[in-house]
């Protein structure tokens, strides 16, 4: 078992087979640096619980293909990313920090899918981005490809 500690001082025990899906922790274990608790100063306990849930489910990815549990995993993944924006980004940041490739793929694809049809205004609001383009610059971008700003699929709602 490997012990992980979140930045709000909560400790979690995870099976080594699960936790080595994180390249970062795998390297630490290989280098003999994981004998005691591993502190994760960038990850809060709420996010870490989600990450561990994912790691435990994906523990035997190879076996899933053999035993026909792929559909089960797929369903789990779909459910897993069904979370709020803030939460999703916390998991993405954690996956990036811990270097968990599959989790990064899953969450970034989910973020991309949610943004795909959004209007510019909606994206700014969702991601709390301040528009620092001048009106002329903005108009120039629109004039380059006006068709990219039109279409019934473009969604101005923020969710």
């Amino acid at each position, binding site marked *: 078992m490997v012990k992980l500690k979140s*930045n709000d001082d909560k400790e979690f025990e995870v099976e080594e087979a699960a936790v080595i899906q994180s390249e970062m922790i795998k390297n630490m274990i290989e280098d003999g640096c994981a004998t005691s608790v591993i502190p994760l100063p*960038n*990850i*809060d306990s709420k*996010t870490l619980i989600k990450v561990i849930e994912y790691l435990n489910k994906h523990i035997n990815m190879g076996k899933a293909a053999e035993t026909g549990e792929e559909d089960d995993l797929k369903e789990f993944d779909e459910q897993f990313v069904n979370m709020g*924006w*803030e939460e999703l*980004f*916390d998991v*993405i*940041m954690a996956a*990036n920090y811990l270097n968990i490739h599959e989790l*990064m793929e899953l969450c*970034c*694809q989910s*973020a*991309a899918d949610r*943004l*795909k*049809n*959004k*209007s*510019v205004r909606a*994206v*700014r609001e969702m*991601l*709390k*981005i*301040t*528009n*620092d*383009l001048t009106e002329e*610059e*903005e108009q120039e*971008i*629109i004039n*380059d*490809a006006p*068709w*990219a*700003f039109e*279409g019934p699929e*473009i969604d101005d709602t923020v969710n």
Partner: protein
Amino acid sequence: MMHSVPLQEEITMEILSRLPVQPLLRFKCVSTCWMTLISEPYFTLKHRNRAKNDQNSQKFLVSRKDLLEDEFSLYCSSLSSVQRIEEVQKLDCPSNGKPWRSCKLYCCYDSLVLIAVFNYCDKTNQRLLWNPSTRESIVLPDQKFSLERCWCTWGLGYDSVSDDYKILKIDLESCSEILALKSGSWRLTNNYPIGNRPDLLCTESLVFVHGAFHWIDNISRSTVTALSISSEVYTEIPLPEKMLSIYDHKCGRLVSVWQKSFVFMLIIRLKWGTLLGFG
């Protein structure tokens, strides 16, 4: 607590590289940072490499003549065996607003398509390099050296050494011309060995694989000639005897390399690939 937003640039890039072209062009308007990021060559490359490995971003490209309107149109659809009607998309053709009388698709590479159009109104012929996903196109300069009326065939490929797309045109007189997009003009390259004249009946376009253009020669019909896009050196690949006998039965295009080329020619990667301008 960690700060969820604003996102680090690295993560923003991870997410944006998974988007199709249309929202990317739109999201240039989000902020200066996003505009710069989406316009960077590194991002283009990342997006292109992702699209290459994504089955969903590969499409068939088909040219079709609309019977009633006497015009050519281009359509794309998914490669899936289960075709849904909404997946067939009519493309906005690069036309300067003029209808075409005819249109010939030569070849595709990455997200770029080399086409020739014959203009309806002023009866002019143009060759265009076109990116259907960004809807950008450029008119190719006229070739300098070979005769327009001479039979010829074309190839399009990417040279990783010079980081440039190149178009090769060869004719039956052994004349080979190359257009490197960054240079913006045609130049002659080494003549191909005279015995390796391409069989134009079976060569709609040159096949570009492994950094070289390929064609079957029409005299012995026993070799494939390859021209490296970087070094511009010719090599010959002998065809196995078994394939020659297939060729004799007029099924030359079904020979493995050609069969692949057929799919190759039709597949475009619709997600990205900035069309390089001249200069």
